[in-house]
């Protein structure tokens, strides 16, 4: 039983981690919290569903395809909304509200299109349940962990070992200095948003097979991704992963051993406690103004 719960916890924690990573990336690159990540995850989920179930595209194509689409959407949002507002010297908080508005539009659009139904992913593997001794695990959970891990490793390598990744980090830390090094800050910022959206899209297509797809899934997961990012230290990428895993573990074990009714309460509560008492999180992100 314990192993089962643990696997489930790590699986969901990894997905929160992908969302939280997205938040941290955007925060580091643009200095703001984007509230649209949750809905992008939902979009990723629906896209993955459409590609795999309705267009019968094999899963190993559907995944990168979804990633590509979400990447584009992220770039478009940055280029046409965020950058435009930044150019107009709009106050930071309004840009944040703009992302909230965007998330409302996306969510309600989805609700109009697909209603409140929960859609099921057709099985991706030929076995619906892996049996290892007494332990029963959904292969989709293992897949979620593996792919999430893979994505994070690739991201880490990209950010630290490639020229483009390093330019992105430089541009995020100090855009003006970066410009003097002929780094195209506009491009790197757009890239960052694209990657952040892509990560969250991956999260969507990974969680769909485990919990189903619905128009309302984005809000809750988005909040949990926030919690993970805050717990780990907002803006800190490794913190985001650790914080999210922690959250996934607390939440899942709570649900398994105590009561599943208060599962969501737990995340909320943890988020608030951290915001009140440890706003900089475990790994010291930036929180206060000025």
């Amino acid at each position, binding site marked *: 039983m314990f192993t089962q719960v643990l696997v489930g916890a790590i699986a969901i924690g990894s997905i929160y981690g992908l969302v939280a990573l997205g938040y941290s990336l955007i925060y580091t690159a643009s200095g703001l919290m984007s509230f649209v990540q949750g809905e992008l995850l939902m979009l990723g989920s629906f896209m993955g569903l459409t590609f795999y179930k309705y267009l019968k595209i094999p899963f190993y194509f559907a995944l990168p395809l979804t990633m590509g689409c979400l990447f584009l959407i992220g770039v478009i949002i940055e280029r046409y909304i965020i950058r435009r*507002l930044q150019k107009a010297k709009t106050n930071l*908080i309004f840009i*944040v509200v*703009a992302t*909230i*508005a965007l998330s409302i*539009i996306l969510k309600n659009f989805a609700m109009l299109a697909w209603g409140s139904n929960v859609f099921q992913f057709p099985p991706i593997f030929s076995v619906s349940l892996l049996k290892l001794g007494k332990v029963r695990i959904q292969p989709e959970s293992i897949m979620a962990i593996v792919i999430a891990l893979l994505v994070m490793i690739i991201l880490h390598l990209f950010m630290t070992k490639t020229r483009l990744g390093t330019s992105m980090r430089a541009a995020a830390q100090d855009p003006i200095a970066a410009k003097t090094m002929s780094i195209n800050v506009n491009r790197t910022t757009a890239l960052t948003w694209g990657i952040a959206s892509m990560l969250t899209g991956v999260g969507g297509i990974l969680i769909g097979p485990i919990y189903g797809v619905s128009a309302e899934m984005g809000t809750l997961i988005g909040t949990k991704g926030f919690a993970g990012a805050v717990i780990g230290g907002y803006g800190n990428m490794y913190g985001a992963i650790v914080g999210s895993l922690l959250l996934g573990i607390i939440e899942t074990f709570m649900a398994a051993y105590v009561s599943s009714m208060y599962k969501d309460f737990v995340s*909320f509560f943890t988020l608030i406690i951290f915001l009140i008492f440890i*706003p900089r999180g475990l790994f010291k992100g930036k929180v206060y103004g000025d």
Partner: protein
Amino acid sequence: MDNILKPKSSSSFQIKWIMLIILGGVLPFIFLGDPYVLILLCTTEISIIAVSGLDILFGYCGQISLGHAGFYCIGAYTSAILSRNLGMPVFITIPIAGFFAMIIGILLALPAAKLVHHFLALVTISFGEIIYLFVSQARGLTEGYTGMNFIPRPKIGGIIFTSNTSYYYVIYGILVILLALKQNLVASGTGRAFVAIREDAHAANGMGINITKYKTMAFAISAFYTGIAGALYAHLIGFISPETFTSNQSTLFLTMLLFGGMGNFWGPIIGSAILVIITEFLQKLGSYQMLIYGAILLLVIIYIPGGISKGLNLQLFFKKSKRGKIAC
């Protein structure tokens, strides 16, 4: 020097107050007391109060609140429970509801005053959600998802304000008083302290303003206004349920404020009036409603950042400011 430099409020005193009082006074008659229209008018008045509260916190003091429906909810349920379950007179329960909301506002300010921007946004969102979760789950107190009905109208002497027109004027009186208090506030030293915090909190601190104290004050006053609005709403419709007090309502208040314009007298009024009308038309369209609000919000931020009132330069139109003219 006296006639040159009057404090903000009195130089435009005549015009905007006369307009408001006359306009507000005759509206019910224009619509021949049609009860359905009167509900809309009452809703508009209530929204103006709630949004004015948000304006004080966000427009003037610069502290974002994405969970203001929480105060609306607290005001509504407090007044409903006290008046319906405990039989207290409505004219007493409404102010109590306002003060209770204010206390919660002060409590929220404890963590919130230390946070800015997105973190503040997160905390206020969480606040709104928690209030919603509370009233949904605390069935013994609030009857949960079923909601509370038979919430009474106010009563004085033997007169019950049953007709929507009569209740309209009750709200109207409260509205005018609250707006006047708000105008006094923003033209005063406290109002300036709020704006200073919004403009540059660091420098405001350096100029002698206790940031924590004033932010808490802003939260408190804002919560009071929105709490009163919630109470008035409860007695208007006679029925409340958690569904009214979700984050959608917080978004609606914010949209009204941004649309109408922040940090001025007419902004909350215009924003509320227009959006209440839009809401009515969208009633039939269900889910399209929130979609359109989201779109309005986004469009306002991108294209009309100051809101309608600034866009149309209403302030200059009404403000017969003599302050600019100095004898050379």
